[in-house]
């Protein structure tokens, strides 16, 4: 029990004293989640829009697949990406194994189903008259997409926040593809896992709290989008 309080104190110390190990992991986490969120939003939001907005044969089946992919285990993604990026894998040449961009690739696969499924749900829930209204006002196809997304921004925001939570807390991909290399690819979550394995529970809690502090800052920075 006492390690909880200890963790809280340590978390504040780590942040205030500018502990270099911690900050190295913080930056790694921020960079990696930045990449993977950018990629998964760029691909997933249009994808989700398409899935939610248009009616086509087999739409429900596609949703079923996407929903199943929500349960893609991080370690499995880690293994798949590892298989491709390994020296002996087809993309070994790129030298992305044990690098932050490598992790970001794996996390993108992790976040993509979340963004697609939730964006599609948000778009689907929108009033069917919105589309007609926008077209009658003279939107182009792109403007239609942008305006519908803007009207449904609360849903997209929820999609992004959920995907961010998933990306930023995952361990499997970061371990497998990143290798948890100190000063290089050690992210907050792999650091937490390591400290916990070392039996340094207080340190694990401290790093966990730091991770939540980052999440708070990130969510706070898009707070204004919630205004109605």
């Amino acid at each position, binding site marked *: 029990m006492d390690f909880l309080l200890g963790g809280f104190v340590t978390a504040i110390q780590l942040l205030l004293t500018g502990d270099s190990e911690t900050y190295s992991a913080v930056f790694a986490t921020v960079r990696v989640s930045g990449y993977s969120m950018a990629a998964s939003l760029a691909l997933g939001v249009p994808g989700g829009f398409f899935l939610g907005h248009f009616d086509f044969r087999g739409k429900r089946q596609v949703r079923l697949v996407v929903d199943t992919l929500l349960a893609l285990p991080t370690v499995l993604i880690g293994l798949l990406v590892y298989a491709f990026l390994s020296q002996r894998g087809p993309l070994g040449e790129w030298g992305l194994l044990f690098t932050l961009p490598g992790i970001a690739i794996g996390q993108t696969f992790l976040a993509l189903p979340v963004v697609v499924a939730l964006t599609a749900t948000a778009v689907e829930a929108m009033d069917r008259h919105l589309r007609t*209204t926008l077209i*009658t006002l*003279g939107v182009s196809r792109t403007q239609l997409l942008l305006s519908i997304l803007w*009207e449904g921004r609360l849903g997209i925001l929820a999609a992004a926040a959920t995907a961010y939570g998933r990306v930023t807390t995952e361990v499997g991909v970061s371990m497998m593809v990143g290798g948890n290399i100190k000063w290089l690819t050690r992210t907050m979550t792999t650091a937490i896992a390591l400290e916990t394995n070392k039996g340094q529970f207080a340190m694990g809690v401290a790093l966990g709290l730091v991770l939540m502090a980052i999440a708070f800052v990130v969510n706070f920075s898009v707070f204004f989008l919630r205004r109605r």
Partner: protein
Amino acid sequence: MKPPLYTIRSLVHAYDGGPPVLAIERLSVAAGSILGLVGPNGSGKSTLLKLLAFVEKPTRGEIRFKDRPAAPFSDAVRFQVTLLTQEPYLMRRSVHANVAYGLKLRGRSRDCRPQVAAALSLVGLAAERFADRKWYQLSGGEAQRVSLAARLALQPEALLLDEPTASVDAASAELIKAAVIRARDQWGTTLVIASHDRQWLYEICDDSLHLFRGRILESGADNLLFGPWQPGPSGFWHKPLAGGGVLRVPPPPDDQAVGVLDTRAVSLTAPGAASPQGLNTLDGVVSRLVLEKNTRRIVATISVGLLALTVKLDPERLQALHLYPGKAVRIHFAPQAVAWCDPA
């Protein structure tokens, strides 16, 4: 003469593989005209307007705009045509942002406040009181009028209005009438307007189109006669009416068929007047008299039990009959004047 703005050929529309709800063989809408669409619920008015706005693609057939084919999002119509939908939808923004939205799309974003205010005032809303309200801070009629203002602000070439006065008060309906006429006169806008308020509609339309079960009826088809019909003597079919009396019609295609009776075929006489042999003779009461502004003729509605029939009269004839609302009258028309709608 100017070429037609719209030309329609062999148009059929059905929703999601259902039965066809609209089938128009040919129709053209002259540039600068105001066309009224009337017809009962579900007759296809909104469907036709959505097709004319290129929001939906017809299942079969073609709609040409300025003699060119067009499709949703096509540049030829995007900024030229706009539709006020039947359920006015406001985006989750302020009234100002809603009205300004279309202007911004057209690149007129630089200070559109005055344009928005002008559009709002056309529908009787003061910009100071309304521009900054949120979309949900409006009454039903106010929301309807904001939607209309958002269309008027665009000064489009073709303005399609679906029930623009549905929940609008009488004073605003007059304002909207003025705005519509001004749009045509000042900007040369072509208008197609669907409305159940025939008095209001007939006061602005150059021409009107009667839709019934997805088909265009011949003009003058203000009276619809519903079955069920029973076979009767001498080749005619019958329907007994609520207040006594019987309607006689030519043999219908089926016993639920709907008959169309041209107003011009109906004549009014004083109650108790002798009825010419072979004509339908019905006794009713005048329930309203309305002036048709363009023609200066008077539209009389005659209640015959639950049936309401429309007759058009010259002022002279009306004076001769001493008609006033509440007065009993007798109606005559030939059974042969009833035509049958095509089954849908």
